[in-house]
Each structure stands twice: as C-alpha cells, then as structure tokens.
C-alpha cells in the first residue's frame, strides 16, 4: 500500500486515534463534520448561481433557481455556521468554565434536529421549488397561486426543527453556566447569570467602578460572556422565527383543508417590522457578538496574554447586544410607510453604533496581537487576520447602505449582498471559524498532525482572494444598478459576473484544499471513528480531565 493510501486511510503519521476521544470531543467534531458538509452544499449552490448570473442555464430555470436562492442562505447560516459555532461553544463553555456540560443528550439532540431540519427544507425546496426567500415578505410565503401549501408546510417544519434544536442549545448554554453539577459545592446561579450577561459590568459602569484602579473580578471569562450574550439574541431569533413559522403554517393548513384565509388579515408592514427585528438578531446581533468573543479568545490563546482593555471589551459586548435589539429598521429605509423616526433613529443612528462596537472589537484584538510581538505566522493567526479584514471591509459597507440617502440607490442591489453580506460571512465569519478550527484541531483530536502546511496556505490565499474579490465585483455591479434576487438574461453585467464567478471558483478550490487536508490529517478510518460511541464518561472534556470526579475529590 502506498504512503498516500496509508495516510488517506489512517491519517497523517497515524497520529489521530478516535478511540481516545471523549464523548464531548467526538460530538464537537461531529458538529464540525456536518457543518462542513452543509458549507459544501451552500458553496456548490452559490457557484451554480454564479454561473447562472453569467449565463442563465436551462437546468436552472427560474423556479429552481429561486428555490436554490431560498435554500442557499438558510443552509449556509443554519446548516453550516450554526453547527460550527454551536459545536465549538458546546465544547468551549465546559472547557473554559472547567465544568461538565449540563446535558450531553441535549447537545446531541441539537445537532440532529438541525441536521434533519436543514436536509428537510433543502430537499423540499429542491423537489417542490418552494421559494419565498429567507425574507418571507408577507404575503409571499402564503401565496398559493405560486406555491403548493403542502410543500410550504414541509419547508416550515424543516425550519421549525432547526429552531427547536437551536432552542435546546440556548437552554444548554445557560444551564451549563449556572447549574451545580452533582457533588459540587453550590454554584451562585444568579451571579453567574448576571455576570455572563454583563449586568455586573453595567452596574459597575453606573457606579463609576469601571475604572482602571478598581478591581474587576468576574465569575465568567470574557469568551463565555460573549457566548452568553450572543445566545440571548439566538433565543429571541428562535422566538420570532417560530412565531412567524406558526403563522404561515396556519395559512397553509387552512388552505390544505379548503378554508383559505385572507392574507390581508396580517399587516404586511407590521409583519416586516417584527420579522426583520427577529431576523436581524442573527446578522446584526449574534454573529457580531459571537465573532467579537471568538476574536478575543483566539487572540488570547495565540498570544498567551490577556485581552487589551478587557473590561471595555466586556462592556462593548453588552452594548452590542442592546444595539442589536434596536437596529432592524435599517432594512426598512426604502419602505415609505415606515415612520421617519424609526428610519433615522433605529435605521441610521443606532446602526452606526455597530461601527463603534465592531470597531472596538477589531482594535482590541489587533492591539492584543501587537503587544505580543514577535508572533509566528501560524494558520490560526493568518485566518484570524483574514477574519478581522473581512469585517473591516464589510461593516463600513453596511453602514453606508444604512443611510437614508444612499439606501435609496443601494437597497436590494448586489452591493448589499456582495461587499456587505458575502464579505462579512465568507471572509469575516468563515475565516474566523477556520482560525478556530485550525487552533482547536490538535486539542479536539488529541494531537492529530496537519497533513500539509502548503495546502493550508493555499486554502488561506484562495479563500481570501476569492471572498474579497467576489464581494468586490458583486459590489461594482450593484453600483451600476444590478439587483439581487433576480435573473438577468441579456448579459447586462457580464464582465462583473464573469470575474465574480472566477473568484467564486477560488472559494471552491479553497474548500477542496481544506477538506483534502483534513481528511488526510484524520484519515477515512479516523473520520468514521468519530461516529462510534466513546467509552469515556460524558463529564470528561479532555482525556484524563473528568471534572465530575475531580470536583467530588
């Protein structure tokens, strides 16, 4: 057997031994596997749509194209980003708090509910072409002239499964932070809860005790505080999406049973407000809070030092949470019936705070790295810098479109989805997640050795150039008037779309490099071994660190 085949089967230097993994390590890696599979779905769909933007394809006739456009962001966010982030946090909270996970079974349920939910709505969209887009502008999801109510109901059930799984994640996060494991001394649940949400810091701020000369003791670390605060937005988002889903489902069930309901019973603008309030808690809430927290964690792990101005970092995380509850109206700047006070107050002014909160996270992370020089340019550091760059590019682009004057000519153009959304997600968020994967890989695999540094380097550059380039060319087309959510068949924006497609293909190359590297690192047998039951206790986070036993001792 050749060396290549040996490595393919057994991993690099046979260093990865799945039988040594704890249940939590295995579960976390299962989250990562499914997260990457769904990232592959989203990437391939994205590339197909890029090709369609260059030249409309017969296979991608409008019904199928828009079904794909509906599934693409949902698979990308729920199937990929949520699984990667939830998996990482399910491991990190017990690891950082040195405390067993509240419920291992709940974490397993979260994984499988999201996996099954995503494949349900994806398959439904693929087979039946239910395509109201993720925006679900009323009354489109209940427009039964265009969509079959049964296919719509299956789609909504798929989304609901994801939301139930997500709600269980929320429960597990807060219970793990606050509960007292069996045999442990009683934990101060209320104080832990308050500290994790920033209420302690807020109290100190108003008491004038947030100064440098005042001691700042905290019960939960900065990354755990970030996870907790982002999880608040996750919870609100679940509530709004489930509520909207039930409303749509009522219309579908009524239609199926032959009792059509009037869509005018629901006010389209009011619906748009509450739906965007909830939906925006993802884009302008939990993503930004989670990313800031992850930057702080990565920076402190890479440098081995405390985060610069950590008390302000903690305060900014709380501020970002409050800001995220009040920014939704920037999505309604082109809705003329929306009150001007909401457009200016929520849409422009409060949204501008995101420049401040995210700018602070950027600055704090950069200075933390700077103060620890000289640093070796490792994969986690490279990808962290890429993630920082992504948000440095995408947040100002978002602030510009959240301006009443500019929104009039940018709303729903490729500018919004290119330089803002795709650069934020693909470069900012995904590169931050890749940084975490490269950093945590040795810890989660008990010392597996990365197969190829060269492939990791190609992964970095192709992803960075592909992500930034694709966003840039989409943005240029947007400035020329190219809309999102439509099909152009006369080559109106051909040069930009060709260049964006080339950059999109670089992103696929990046993913292929990463997947090959990971498979060769773990080996196919190793990857399969992740799905075999661990013989170690669930309270053991890393081998030899059974926290339940230690506490009792």
């Amino acid at each position, binding site marked *: 057997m050749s060396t290549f085949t040996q490595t393919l089967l057994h991993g690099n230097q046979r260093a990865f031994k799945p039988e040594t993994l704890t249940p939590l390590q295995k579960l976390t890696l299962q989250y990562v596997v499914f997260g990457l599979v769904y990232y592959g779905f989203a990437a391939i769909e994205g590339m197909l749509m890029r090709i369609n933007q260059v030249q409309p394809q017969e296979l991608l006739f409008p019904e199928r194209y828009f079904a794909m456009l509906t599934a693409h962001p949902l698979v990308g966010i729920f199937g990929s980003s949520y699984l990667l982030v939830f998996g990482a946090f399910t491991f990190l909270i017990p690891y950082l708090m040195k405390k067993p996970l509240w419920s291992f079974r709940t974490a397993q349920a979260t994984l499988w509910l999201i996996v099954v939910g995503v494949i349900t709505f994806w398959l439904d969209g693929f087979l039946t072409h239910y395509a109201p887009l993720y925006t679900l502008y009323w009354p*489109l999801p209940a427009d039964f002239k265009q969509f079959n109510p049964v296919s719509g109901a299956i789609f909504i059930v798929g989304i609901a499964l994801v939301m139930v799984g997500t709600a269980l994640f929320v429960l597990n996060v807060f219970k793990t932070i606050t509960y007292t494991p069996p045999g442990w001394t009683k934990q101060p649940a209320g104080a832990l809860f308050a500290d994790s949400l920033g209420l302690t810091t807020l109290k100190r701020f108003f008491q004038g005790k947030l100064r440098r000369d005042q001691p700042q003791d905290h019960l939960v670390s900065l990354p755990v505080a970030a996870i907790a605060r982002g999880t608040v937005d996750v919870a609100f988002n679940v509530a709004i999406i489930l509520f909207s889903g039930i409303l749509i489902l009522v219309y579908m069930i009524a239609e199926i049973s032959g009792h059509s309901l009037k869509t005018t019973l629901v006010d389209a603008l009011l619906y748009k407000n509450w739906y965007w309030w909830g939906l925006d808690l993802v884009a302008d809430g939990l993503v930004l809070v989670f990313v800031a927290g992850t930057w702080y964690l990565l920076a402190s792990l890479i440098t081995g030092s405390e985060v610069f101005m950590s008390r302000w970092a903690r305060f900014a995380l709380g501020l970002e949470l409050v800001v995220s509850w009040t920014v939704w109206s920037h999505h309604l700047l082109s809705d003329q019936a929306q009150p001007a006070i909401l457009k200016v107050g929520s849409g422009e002014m409060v949204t501008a705070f995101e420049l401040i909160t995210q700018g602070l996270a950027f600055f704090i992370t950069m200075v933390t790295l*700077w103060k620890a020089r*000289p640093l070796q340019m490792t994969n986690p550091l490279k990808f962290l810098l890429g993630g920082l760059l992504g948000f440095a590019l995408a947040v100002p682009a978002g602030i510009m479109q959240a301006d009443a004057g500019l929104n009039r000519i940018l709303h729903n153009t490729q500018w919004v989805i290119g330089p803002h959304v795709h650069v934020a997600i693909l470069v900012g968020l995904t590169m931050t997640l890749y940084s975490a994967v490269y950093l945590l890989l040795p810890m989660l695999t008990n010392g597996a050795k990365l197969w190829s540094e060269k492939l990791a380097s190609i992964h970095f550059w192709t992803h960075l150039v592909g992500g930034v380039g694709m966003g840039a060319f989409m943005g240029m087309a947007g400035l020329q008037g190219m809309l999102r959510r439509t099909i152009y068949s006369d080559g109106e924006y051909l040069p930009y779309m060709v260049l964006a497609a080339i950059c999109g293909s670089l992103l696929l190359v990046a993913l292929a490099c990463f997947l090959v590297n990971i498979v060769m690192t773990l080996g196919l047998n190793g990857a399969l071994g992740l799905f075999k039951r661990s013989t170690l206790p669930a309270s053991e986070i890393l081998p030899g660190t059974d926290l339940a036993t230690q506490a009792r001792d």
Partner: protein
Amino acid sequence: MNPWIHDIDSVTVLWGQTIIYTAYCLAILSLMGWFALKLSGHDSRFVPGPRTFYLWVGFLTLLGVSLHLITYNTIPWVKDDLSGNPNVAAAFDLSIGNHAWQVPGGQLDVPCQKLVRFSVTSDDLTYGFGIFRKDNSMVTQMQVVPGHPNDLLWTFTQDGLYDIRSTEYSGPAGYRIIAKDAIAVSGCGK
C-alpha cells in the same frame, strides 16, 4: 437648498461612494498587510495604551454620526424623503398586481428639475418600484408594500426615457416585472 445640489443625481452620489469606499478598501488592505508583516518582528516602539483606545472610540463615534449628517446635507433627496413635501409639480399614481405594472396611459410625462411624486399601490404582494436608465443603472427606488401608501418624491436632472422595474422579489413569476420607457422626462434641455 444650495443651487449646486440640483445638479446632483444618483450617478454623482454613486461615484462619490465608489471613490470613498475604494480608497478605504485600499487603505485597510494596506494596513492589514503591513500589520501582518510587522507581527513577526519587534522593531516598533509604538505600544498603544488606553489613550489610543479612547481616541479610537472618539474617532469611530465621529465617523458614524458624521456620515449621516454629511449625506443629509449633500444628497438632495434625503430631506424631502424623510420629512415629506406637499409642494410637488406633478403627481403620478401607478399600481402593480399579479406581477405586472399598470402605468396610466402606458407612459408618464414627467417634468425635469421639478419635484414630482410617484404613488404606487400593490394589489397583492410586496414589490419594489425602481426607475432605471437605459444603461441599466438605477435612478431611485422604493419598496411597494400592500395595504400601505408608497410615495416617492423625486427630482429628475436629465431628460430621457426611463424604465420601471420591480426591485423586490415577489416569487419566481415576478423576476422580470419591467415597464419599458414608462417614464419620459423632458424640460431640462440636456
């Protein structure tokens, strides 16, 4: 309103935005490149402290607020857009439903350099009302929400024929809701 503002249209604004954002992108890319190179060395004496941090907070605050103040005072349509203006030279009513525009008379004759109002109603779904030049660039747009008034105030600065296109997704049936040459602007002499 300053007289020079009358000559500013969306093309000018978008050019301004392109220049500013491109310059910013080049600056941040250069900064990150320089930062990455410097991280592996220790030849700089500059170590940021709390003072630098507070200056950065002040800079971000100033930047966030000033953007909207600048656009409010330089982009001509913002004030009318936010506060409304009943003094219009002409008003046009349109409707959209079943994925098709209903343009009275098939074409609207719009005076140039005069404030006009477009009132668009939707009979069924949420759509968008976008006005486009012949080179496909956008003049302006708004959302068209069913059950609500959707009024757009606008001043054209160029004579010519313009297309109307729905700028919002309304299902697979509505990806190309276009009314060609639906607006004819005249009176500017250019």
